[in-house]
């Protein structure tokens, strides 16, 4: 079945990226479609919507969104995109996203692009959109069965987890080196901890940037993007499979914010334009402060971020702020707190504005072990995030759990 993804956009063709969008959709079994509207519908739709942008293409976006909401056009998912740095486009993109979510049950992803589009990130978003539509039953799985392994090949670290009958029996992580070798290494170590052999596994699931390479080599039953897998792992580890939640994953290279209902994602945003809003920035900070990353959280807990002027939209400028503030006599505790606050603030500004944050907030990923960052995120979202045990293993836990969905007769 081809998944119809309705495209509501402005500027994709003249930015030369439409083919990348079509290609990404095609790769994951989707197809971009444009909801039909008649000329006379456009003005009527804009009047009813209440926002009348000067650019007619944005008016057309609104009319197409209304056509979807009114059920005049049938699609399975929605992709909303406008040019990066266009204020009018950004306003309409966000309001159209909100409108679609309020008036339809369609999964939505928004995207702000330049002519130098990042194909891998776009593919992950498309794959997640299609997965949500196509694999709803699989995503509804709440218990792991049999003996399965999950591998999460991330940009910074690679993780593996072994599950047997819904229990964790082995796990291991290490910084990502060569993708395939690191994947095999973490699997071997996790298997050793579990005391089982690879040949005994009923199935393997792989997620993360290196999923295709590792998954193919191991003959994995599940090779899936990290948005849906991580959210599944997060609600499983946090034991929050029912009801609503928001999952925040500040990763090494990009950040994810995902809203879920009964463990199934219904909206997500993924950032990654600037490293200043990622775990990578905190790694750079610890190097400059000459402290182990494990100690950064505790240091930040003791500091006061308000004493340091830091805005790490860009990691290079962020480190400049850090150097300046240290030279001005600020303590490393204050600097650590400011770095954590700055990353949380960027995530709040770049990601959380694009989804409707639902309580509880579950914070996951390696960076959720940095207490100072968790506190800073809590300050932003207005409640203390839940940090499940083994929160850095969400991807591998989710992959192992979902891989068991493919086992027959168990």
């Amino acid at each position: 079945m081809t998944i119809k993804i309705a495209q509501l956009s402005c500027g994709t063709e003249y930015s030369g990226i439409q083919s990348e969008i079509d290609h990404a959709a095609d790769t994951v079994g989707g197809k971009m479609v444009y909801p039909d509207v008649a000329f006379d519908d456009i003005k009527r739709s804009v009047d009813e919507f209440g926002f009348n942008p000067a650019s007619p293409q944005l008016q057309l976006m609104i009319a197409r969104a209304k056509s979807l909401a009114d059920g005049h056009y049938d699609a399975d998912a929605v992709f909303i995109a406008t040019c990066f740095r266009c204020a009018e486009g950004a306003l309409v993109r966000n309001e159209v996203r909100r409108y679609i979510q309020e008036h339809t049950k369609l999964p939505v992803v928004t995207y702000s692009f330049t002519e130098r589009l990042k194909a891998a990130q776009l593919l992950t978003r498309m794959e997640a959109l299609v997965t949500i539509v196509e694999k709803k039953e699989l995503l509804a799985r709440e218990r792991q069965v049999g003996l399965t392994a999950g591998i999460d090949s991330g940009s910074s670290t690679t993780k593996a987890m072994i599950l047997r009958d819904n229990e964790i029996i082995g796990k291991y992580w290490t910084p990502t080196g060569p993708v395939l070798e690191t994947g095999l290494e973490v699997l071997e170590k996790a298997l050793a901890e579990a005391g089982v052999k690879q040949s005994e596994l009923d199935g393997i699931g792989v997620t993360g940037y290196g999923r295709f390479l590792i998954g193919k080599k191991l003959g994995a039953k599940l090779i899936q993007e990290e948005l849906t897998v991580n959210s599944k792992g997060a609600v499983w580890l946090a034991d929050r499979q029912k009801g609503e939640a928001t999952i925040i994953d500040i990763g090494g290279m990009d950040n994810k914010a995902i809203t879920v209902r009964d463990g199934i994602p219904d909206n997500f945003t993924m950032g990654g334009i600037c490293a200043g809003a990622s775990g990578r920035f905190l790694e750079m900070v610890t190097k400059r402060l000459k402290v182990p990353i494990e100690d950064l959280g505790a240091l930040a807990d003791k500091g006061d971020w308000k004493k340091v002027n830091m805005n790490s939209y860009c990691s290079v400028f962020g480190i400049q702020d850090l150097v300046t503030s240290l030279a001005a006599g600020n303590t490393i505790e204050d600097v650590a707190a400011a770095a954590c606050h700055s990353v949380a603030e960027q995530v709040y500004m770049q990601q959380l504005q694009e989804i409707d944050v639902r309580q509880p907030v579950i914070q996951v990923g390696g960076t959720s072990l940095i207490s100072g960052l968790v506190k800073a995120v809590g300050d932003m979202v207005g409640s203390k995030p839940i940090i499940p045990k083994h929160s850095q293993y969400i991807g591998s836990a989710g992959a192992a759990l979902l891989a068991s969905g493919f086992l027959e007769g168990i």
Partner: protein
Amino acid sequence: MIVIAPSSDLTPDQVARFIHSLGLDINIKETCYGANIEGPKGQVRKALTEVRKLDPNRIFSKVRAFPIGDERRCRAHHGSRPGFNQVEKEWKDLSMIDAGLCAADRGEICELPPPPEKLPVKRLREIVDEVTK
């Protein structure tokens, strides 16, 4: 791309058949608004000149970017593209352009009355006083 104004009695089918009857070395595709023709420049121009003669002020034309039947711009394939709404609106308004061309043929001097001037503040004040009395 040949477009017939809504004020014309011609149909796309008639136009397409007429072009076929010219026996030129061109591809012809009938559309909801007229026909798309494609081929060597000279032949296309000849077809255009002849077809215009059928109803000079009600047959319009322009160049189209995409070749006939190109999937990249096929409505059946993806749904309508933005340009479709533009053609839809321009086509509807061709009857007005027809009226304009006829006036030009007759050598009419066409002028619009000057737009009304803004209401002087003094007059606005008087109106406010009258209404609020």
